[in-house]
């Protein structure tokens, strides 16, 4: 190792000569193996840094260390140059490291030159020479104020969300009004298409899940009511619960997860690919063309699905009551007729279109809020489902208060 400064000593001279000889030998073996090397060879009052081997990306970590070591030589000698004639292979990484070395040696006030550059590599080295050195530094620090700011922004964002939803509701109603006046603008085909997607294709999964939920409610009811010998009251519980609450709430949550997310993803990717802008420039209103048919399909679909779901749940409950609780189907039906009135059904089904509208509006607002990236699409789809379910439950609570106060 030749250190940065030494006295003019005979001993050192001899050592240096021997060292250079050894390094020369090592270099020759290195060239054969392809491993990159960077030797220091004294030449008169100057110093040659001889690069050899393949200076490529594969060896970049080693190369970087060698270059960092060599950079310490800055200013040690009046004349330092970099000899690259032995380099067998050079790519951008190697070329840049040589350039980095040249720069840091030059910065020290001495002119560093690159010698022995073959014509093949000259243009690559010229290319990296044009690079401005200062790497841009990413600053992203986590501070308490930053976190507080984030919380503040989120809270303020809640207000923004509500305003956005009301805006969208207004826009959809206005579009509906325009279509009502001018029915030719109504997109029947699109509406039917979406109705198929959100209603017809959702029937199997909705029926299956509500059927299972009906079974579970019935089984749990029988299991616990049996202790009081009140098995038959499971029918009352099942009827009221399914028709008033569970049927519609469960279906709405499923629809928010299934169709709300699909709406957001569809609109979001259309937004990303500038399809919505294209519609606008052609003189179409995206609300009228894209959102109104979707909203209408959803508002029609949810009551239908809620009804089918309620029936499936009652059927499942009845089945379990018969098989597990020994309640005769006829007794079940008689009891059901006594236990529930049409009011229960109306209370349930009246909520469905409102919940559908909430889900649809949340999904469309989120879809149109998507920015250019795939990540943003994912975020908005997630928040579409989360907000959709949240608002569905809030609406359910509001309805509960409302119906309680009017005595239904």
């Amino acid at each position, binding site marked *: 190792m030749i250190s940065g400064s030494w006295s003019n000593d005979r001993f050192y001279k001899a050592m240096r000569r021997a060292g250079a000889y050894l390094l020369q030998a090592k270099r020759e073996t290195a060239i054969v193996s392809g491993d990159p090397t960077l030797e220091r060879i004294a030449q008169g009052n100057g110093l040659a840094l001889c690069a050899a081997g393949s200076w490529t990306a594969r060896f970049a970590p080693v190369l970087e260390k060698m270059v960092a070591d060599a950079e310490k030589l800055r200013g040690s000698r009046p004349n330092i140059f970099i000899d690259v004639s032995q380099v067998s292979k050079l790519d951008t990484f190697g070329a*840049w490291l040589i350039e980095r070395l040249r720069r840091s040696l030059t910065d020290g006030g001495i002119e560093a030159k690159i010698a022995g550059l073959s014509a093949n590599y000259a243009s690559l080295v010229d290319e990296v020479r044009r690079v401005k050195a200062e790497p841009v530094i990413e600053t992203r620090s986590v501070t308490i104020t930053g976190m507080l700011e984030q919380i503040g922004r989120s809270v303020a964002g809640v207000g923004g969300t509500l305003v956005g939803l009301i805006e969208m509701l207004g826009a959809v109603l206005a579009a509906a009004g325009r279509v009502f006046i001018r029915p030719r603008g109504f997109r029947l085909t699109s509406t039917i298409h979406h109705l198929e997607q959100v209603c017809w294709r959702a029937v199997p999964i909705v029926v299956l899940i509500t059927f299972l939920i009906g079974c579970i409610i019935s089984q749990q009811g029988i299991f616990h009511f049996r202790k009081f010998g009140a098995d038959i009251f499971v029918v009352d519980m099942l009827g009221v619960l399914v028709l008033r609450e569970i049927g519609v709430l469960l279906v709405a949550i499923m629809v928010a997860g299934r169709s709300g997310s699909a709406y957001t993803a569809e609109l979001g990717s259309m937004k990303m690919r500038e399809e919505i802008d294209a519609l606008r420039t052609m003189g179409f209103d995206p609300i009228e063309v894209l959102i109104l048919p979707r909203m209408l399909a959803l508002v029609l679909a949810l009551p239908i699905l809620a009804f089918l779901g309620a029936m499936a749940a009652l059927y499942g409950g009845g089945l379990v009551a018969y098989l597990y609780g020994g309640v005769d189907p006829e007794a079940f039906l008689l009891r059901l007729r006594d236990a529930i009135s049409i009011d229960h059904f109306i209370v349930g089904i009246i909520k469905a279109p409102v919940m559908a509208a909430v889900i649809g509006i949340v999904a469309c607002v989120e879809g149109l809020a998507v920015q*250019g990236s795939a990540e943003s699409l994912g975020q908005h789809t997630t928040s579409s489902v989360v907000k959709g379910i949240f608002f569905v439950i809030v609406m359910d609570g509001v309805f509960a208060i409302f119906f309680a106060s009017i005595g239904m």
Partner: protein
Amino acid sequence: MVGEISDAIIRVRNITVQFGKTRILDGLNLDVKRGEILGFVGPSGAGKSVLTRTIIGLVPKVAGSIEVFGVDLDKASTSERRGVERRWGVLFQQGALFSSLTVRQNIQFPVREYLNLSQRLLDEVMIAKLGMVGLKPEVADRFPSELSGGMVKRVALARALALDPELVFLDEPTSGLDPIGAGDFDELVRTLQRTLGLTVFMVTHDLDSLYTACDRIAVLGNGKIIAAGSIAEMKASQHPWLNQYFNGKRARSVVV
């Protein structure tokens, strides 16, 4: 039509690709020489992109074999395949930048995966690559959605070149660039080919590129290579499509 080339970096033999009942490529043969820039032309919808995607392995083929760097891609093990993939770079027609990563992260992504480098070197090489494709370091922290169409192309090229590949596939690289930018791009491809010994497989419609950048031109028609050779050979060809393409109104306006 296609002679045996001993030093072929890509060797495509009797490739057949079918989508349903439509046959896109029908027993196609093609050799790409090491170190050349091959311009690949053909009418729209002839299957130029399909061939590119078949070679890269994105489209399954019905029959035939593909050798890249002497490795038969059908018989290669996963690690052999990875090795081949590390040695090629692909520029997709639409750029295909990762939209949730910044320009810096996009370019560094392949490097980070394959090599263990310091952040400083990663940043510097990233800036060097940006410089090579004619972009300023300031764009490094922008997201792809904040770039213009031409910039997306350039960043995508920088990403394709991130690992200093030996072979690059360029799918219509100059489309969407202004003529000066396209000229610079051709120049750049030439420079890289000279300095890195790069082999370039370029699907293009840009006659200027064909004239200035390409060493050899291959023409696709009816699922086969109908001609391959230098630009002079193309111009002399009697094939009607070639004749129209290279001697038509637009071709005459290109200064040779």
